[in-house]
Structure formats: structure tokens, C-alpha cells
């Protein structure tokens, strides 16, 4: 693995606010319902848990290379970026505004899914966000997801990501409905050892997701790379019609038939025709993309 260049600035290590500042044009961001508005969770106090003034998500409007976009960034360090009532409502509102304004949206995912302390409200919020995403896409709005945060993108967050028009992922990004601990708790450590980080990345990590067509663009863990990735993702089509859905359904059926009994990511990569699957996790971005470009399953407009 090549060492990171001295100018590289990790997306993974940045805060949600820091990521937005690096992603968007300098000084172009205006926040809606900022922390001074104190729209925080009304539920956490019942559990003697501290609230955060923005409820772990920043929403607003800005410019990306001059182009107006709406943006939302989840803070994975606050309760694992989990989605509660207010957090969810802020994202729903942003997506509804996107539909009205016909303005594209960029979502900086960093979430473990629904916040268990306000689970019912959180589950409802996920449904509302998905509906708002699909309604915006039906109007031609692009909804781009960026996946490279500390908490990954799990549970309901992964369902929202699945409804985006394009996804950008880094090696550090993880995308899965059930997280490692959830699988281990429900199926036992023999099925999945959540402490085996290499296993976690082989089954949910950015390289794996990109290789099986679960994400559209693969970028370095670098704020400038994510900015370039977001711009490229905004050039991709947003179409969400019957033909796209039928093609996606057929692709998922093919994937299941091809890889359904594979026990490990490396086995999936071998079946894709990757010559040295065990070496994939050690490849730098350039070498990985060379292999991935010829071997990966193409993602359709939906995934």
C-alpha cells in the first residue's frame, strides 16, 4: 500500500461540519435549523442521555463547483449517527425542499441506523425519508450519497442509501443493512465475528460494495476525492422508472444465483474473475480500480 500523500485530508477522520466545509465551495454553505435554533431530540432526556443541539445532522444549501445543491451531513460520533425523530425530520424536510426547488441533494452518510431510544419515531422517519427521496427522484432530482464515515452506513441508513441515484464510497466506507454486532448477536460468533475487522471490510467495506455494483464510484479517503466523486455522481442519471426497476430486479436475482452461497467476500471476488482475491484488501486505489473496472458487476441506475 502506498503511503498517503502529505496533502491528503481524511474524510473518515473529519467531523460532519468539516466534511461539508471541504465538500462545498468555500463559504457557500447556509445551514437550516442550525444549533442555535435548539431543535434537539425531545426523547433523550428521558434516558438521562445528553442531546446535541443539531440532533446529529446538519442540513442546508450550498454550491458544488458553482452548482446549487442541498446537503445533509450526519455526525457519526454523536450516538453513532443514529436517526431519531428530529434528525429524520430535518432530512425529510430537505428532500421535500429538493423536490419543490428541483435542486439536487448530496447526503453525507455516517449512521448506524435508527436510534433505539426513539425507535418508533426513527423507523417512521426512515420511511418518510425514503418516500421523500423517491418523490424527489420522480421529479428528476439527483440524490447522491457519500459513504466514508466512521459509523459506516447501516440499518435504515443503508435503505435510504439504496434509494439514492448514485453512491460514492471509499475503502473505509461500510454499507450493509445489518451491522457486524447485529449479525453476531442474532446468528452467533461462528456466523460472523464482529471483532474481525478484515472480515467486516471483506463483507461490507467499500471495495466489496464497489466490486458487486453496490456503489457507483470508488474514491480515496480524502476530502478532495469525495468532492470530485460527488461532482461525477451528480452527472449520472436520476431516472427511476419501471424499466430501471425491472433491470435492477433481474440484476439482484443474477447476483443471488451467482454469489448466494459464497461464504466470504474473497470468494465473491474470485467468482467475479479477480486473479488474486486475497490481495484485494491490500491494493492501493489505482491498482484496485484497474482490476475493478474490468471485473465489477455494473450497477444499474437503481441498486
Amino acid at each position, binding site marked *: 500500500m502506498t503511503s498517503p500523500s502529505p496533502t491528503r485530508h481524511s474524510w473518515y477522520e473529519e*467531523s460532519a461540519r468539516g466534511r461539508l466545509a471541504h465538500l462545498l465551495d468555500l463559504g457557500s454553505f447556509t445551514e437550516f435549523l442550525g*444549533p*442555535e435554533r435548539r431543535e434537539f431530540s425531545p426523547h433523550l432526556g428521558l434516558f438521562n*442521555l*445528553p442531546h*446535541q*443541539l443539531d440532533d446529529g445532522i446538519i442540513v442546508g444549501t450550498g454550491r458544488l463547483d458553482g452548482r446549487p445543491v442541498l446537503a445533509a451531513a450526519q455526525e457519526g460520533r454523536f450516538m453513532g449517527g443514529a436517526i431519531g425523530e428530529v434528525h429524520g425530520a430535518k432530512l425529510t424536510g430537505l428532500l421535500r425542499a429538493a423536490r419543490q426547488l428541483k435542486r439536487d441533494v448530496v447526503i453525507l452518510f455516517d449512521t448506524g441506523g435508527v436510534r433505539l431510544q426513539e425507535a418508533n419515531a426513527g423507523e417512521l422517519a426512515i420511511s418518510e425519508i425514503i418516500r421523500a427521496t423517491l418523490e424527489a427522484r420522480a421529479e428528476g432530482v439527483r440524490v447522491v450519497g457519500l459513504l466514508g464515515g466512521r459509523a459506516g452506513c447501516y440499518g435504515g441508513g443503508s435503505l435510504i442509501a439504496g434509494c439514492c441515484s448514485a453512491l460514492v464510497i471509499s475503502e473505509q466506507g461500510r454499507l450493509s443493512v445489518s451491522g457486524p454486532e447485529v449479525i453476531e448477536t442474532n446468528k452467533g460468533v461462528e456466523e460472523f465475528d464482529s471483532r474481525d475487522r478484515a472480515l467486516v471490510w471483506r463483507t461490507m467495506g467499500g471495495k466489496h460494495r464497489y466490486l458487486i455494483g453496490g456503489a457507483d464510484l470508488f474514491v480515496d479517503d480524502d476530502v478532495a476525492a469525495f468532492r470530485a466523486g460527488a461532482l461525477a455522481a451528480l452527472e449520472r442519471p436520476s431516472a427511476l422508472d419501471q424499466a430501471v426497476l425491472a433491470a435492477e430486479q433481474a440484476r439482484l436475482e443474477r447476483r443471488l444465483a451467482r454469489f448466494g452461497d459464497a461464504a466470504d467476500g474473497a470468494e465473491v471476488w474470485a467468482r467475479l474473475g479477480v486473479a488474486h482475491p486475497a490481495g484485494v484488501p491490500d491494493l492501493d486505489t489505482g491498482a484496485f480500480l484497474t482490476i475493478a473496472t474490468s471485473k465489477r458487476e455494473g450497477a444499474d441506475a437503481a441498486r
Partner: protein
Amino acid sequence: MENLRYELSSTRPAGGTRAVGLVGVVASGNLEVLLERGAAPDRCVIDIATPAHGFAALWQAVTADFAARMAAGGLRITVNDGGARPDTVALRLAQGVRLMEKPE
């Protein structure tokens, strides 16, 4: 949750023109600090919400030291604590004052 409020004397008024500043996040061993203007120019008002009960004396010492050392006059500060150590609290408060001094 324990809620604490300290109205402290701070002889030097806070610099800069920024209306609002935010530093830190609510995470284990960390805290968020929201800074707003509006207190009297020689006063600094700090509201703290912490899930760790029984540390009022420590909070009082750290905030009084902060208000005496830093140009914090006129600031209204809101702290949401995630169980931060006193040194982390002191650094975040100082970071907040520096942020308010920066041009937007």
C-alpha cells in the same frame, strides 16, 4: 441530567463579530460548546447539561478559570457534555472563544 448555570465575571470582552460558534460534538469523553453573544460585556453566562451527576465543584472551577483567563465577556455559552474530562472542557471552551474571534 444535571443542569448547571454559572454567571461569571470576565473582564475582557470577547473579540470578533461572529454571532454564533459551535465546537466539539456530544460523544464519549467529548462535549459540544455553543457560543452566542448577548451577555453583559463584563459577564459570561455558561449553561451546562451533563449526564455525570455530582461534579458541580469541578465545573465551577473549570469555568471560573476559563472566564478569568480568556476574553469571554459578553458570551452566552451552552455546553452539552458527553462525560468530558476537565482538561477537555477547558480546551473546548478556549477553542470556542478563538472561533468567535475568527472572521467568518
